[in-house]
């Protein structure tokens, strides 16, 4: 089986994330890393490979700036077999529609070498947090999307997940080829071992441009975006209020007084 895992290089959530003057996310000035939520996707892909046996190949695919190679490298260290980095200046500022278009063309190109069976995505990127790319990618590839899985089984050509929805816990099934997305409840991602780190250095990593994908640069990037940001504003920091220390019940009393003063009780 051939598995493609889509991973995104994102600004570190614990760093000072901000916007550029053109209202795009600063992806270069802030330390970045493999989106933590995509580590779960890599993990599930590797688990499928381990269950099915050796001839299964896991390709890591990312669309992003030069540093995004770090995200691929990390996934290769975890155990993925090869990497594809779609890198093109024209891609900067792309929205989800454009990103999904580039990903879809890249998956098709991977397919022309070795046909793909399963695309695995994370539940959302930790910066954009839209959670729409997997559905869009499936729409563009014309395949089912089995999304937000917290437990994943692959049997023959059937992919089955547990999905913890708001209203119900569901079992959802689809037949390969399809796009799967997995949540952070699907099981901790492994750390790269020393052996994994050494092995990753020799794994193939290809870089493709838009031209390699046969995509017109006019179709992507900030100037082609389907939506535009008119303004960004930092939320005023919250100012810390009164903090009391509980001594023999004084904390509860003060808490109740505060609630009453704000008319919550």
């Amino acid at each position, binding site marked *: 089986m051939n598995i493609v895992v889509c991973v995104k290089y994102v600004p570190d*959530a*614990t760093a000072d*994330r*901000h*916007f550029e003057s053109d*209202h795009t996310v600063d992806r270069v000035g802030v330390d970045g890393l493999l989106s933590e*939520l995509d580590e779960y996707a890599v993990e599930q892909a590797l688990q499928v490979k381990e269950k099915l046996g050796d001839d299964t190949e896991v390709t890591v695919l990312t669309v992003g700036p030069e540093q995004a190679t770090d995200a691929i490298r990390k996934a290769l260290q975890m155990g993925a077999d090869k990497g594809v980095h779609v890198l093109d200046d024209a891609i900067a500022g792309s929205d*989800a*529609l454009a990103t*999904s278009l580039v990903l879809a063309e890249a998956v098709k190109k991977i397919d022309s070498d070795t046909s793909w069976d399963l695309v695995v995505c994370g539940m959302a990127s*930790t*910066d954009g*947090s*839209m*959670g*729409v790319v*997997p*559905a*869009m990618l499936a729409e563009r590839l014309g395949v*089912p*999307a*089995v*999304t937000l899985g*917290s437990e994943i089984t692959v049997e023959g050509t059937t992919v*089955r997940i547990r999905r*913890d*929805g*708001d*209203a*119900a816990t569901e*079992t*959802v*099934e*689809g037949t390969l080829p399809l796009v799967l997305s997995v*949540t*952070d*409840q699907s099981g901790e991602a492994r750390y790269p071992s020393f052996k994994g780190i050494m092995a990753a250095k020799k794994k193939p990593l290809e870089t493709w441009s838009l031209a390699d994908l046969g995509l017109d640069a006019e179709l992507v990037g900030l100037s082609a975006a*389907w939506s*535009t940001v008119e*303004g*960004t504003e930092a*939320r005023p920091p*919250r100012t*810390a*209020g*009164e*903090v*009391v*220390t*509980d001594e023999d*019940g004084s904390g*509860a009393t*003060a*808490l*109740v007084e*505060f*609630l009453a003063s*704000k008319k*919550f*009780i």
Partner: protein
Amino acid sequence: MSEVLVLVDIDRSSGVAKVTKPTLELLTIARRLGEPSAVVIGTVDTAPLKAYGAEKIYTVDDADIAGFLVAPKAEVLAQLVEKASAAAVLIPSGGEGKEIAGRLAVKIDSGLITDAVDVAPGDGGGPVTTQSVFAGNFTVQAKVIKGIPVITVKPNAVTPEQSEGAAAEEAFSATISDAAKGARITASEPRKASGRPELTEAAIVVSGGRGTGGDFSEVEGFADSIGAAVGASRAAVDSGWMPHAFQVGQTGKTVSPQLYVANGISGAIQHRAGMQTSKTIIAVNKDDEAPIFELVDFGVVGDLHAVLPAATEAITQRKG
């Protein structure tokens, strides 16, 4: 005026199908942008749709839709957008709503904005959205510039306003392709109703974290004394103490209530992402250096096992 499609969200948890409050919020927003047309997939009592301003109600038989994930719903909306020459489509945010919106945007080659916390008509009449990003640290104004705006809106974005609509019902028969039926729901176990307010809609949310040590009864008791919904940190969910549906944060729910009370929660950035825009924030934590205290309007440094039961008792007594 042109039609603004609103995908109606239906709550079936009580056994009776009901239109949800976020749907009424969407109708209120739709009235700002044009003439609201509610899209009902399946059956539900449509009286609230009329009361909150739906001029038209498209009803779609769900025989070919109910057993599948989102793809058929996106096909319904794409066909309706064309039929009604819709000016915009509003969909409730949430895992399912965002996926419907994503597929729809690709189908009709239109811009998509997710998780809006407000939508207003812009200069040219087209909608301008407000979003809260980077864990709530920034607000962003955006608009769609290609195609028919597809917007998913978070719960509590606006207060629903009553306004009698014509509510002309029209049955719409959509053509669902076989390709859209590729993701089948083979089993479904409805969540038990907790009897408490819905987490994302509640005016007050009381949450517990790792500091509860696994016993949520004190958090729940306190929540009940002030009529609150109960939430949890991921640490509490990962430990199996609360179901994932209660998780607040980046990979759980985003809440923006009048009051949020965090108990035994340290205040990691991913948790903040789900609660930072709450009006008033209170924390109870035994560590006076816990980052959650940077956010609070009021805080108690102390053991939640002592503070919460005492506060619950005092509140119950006040109520007499």
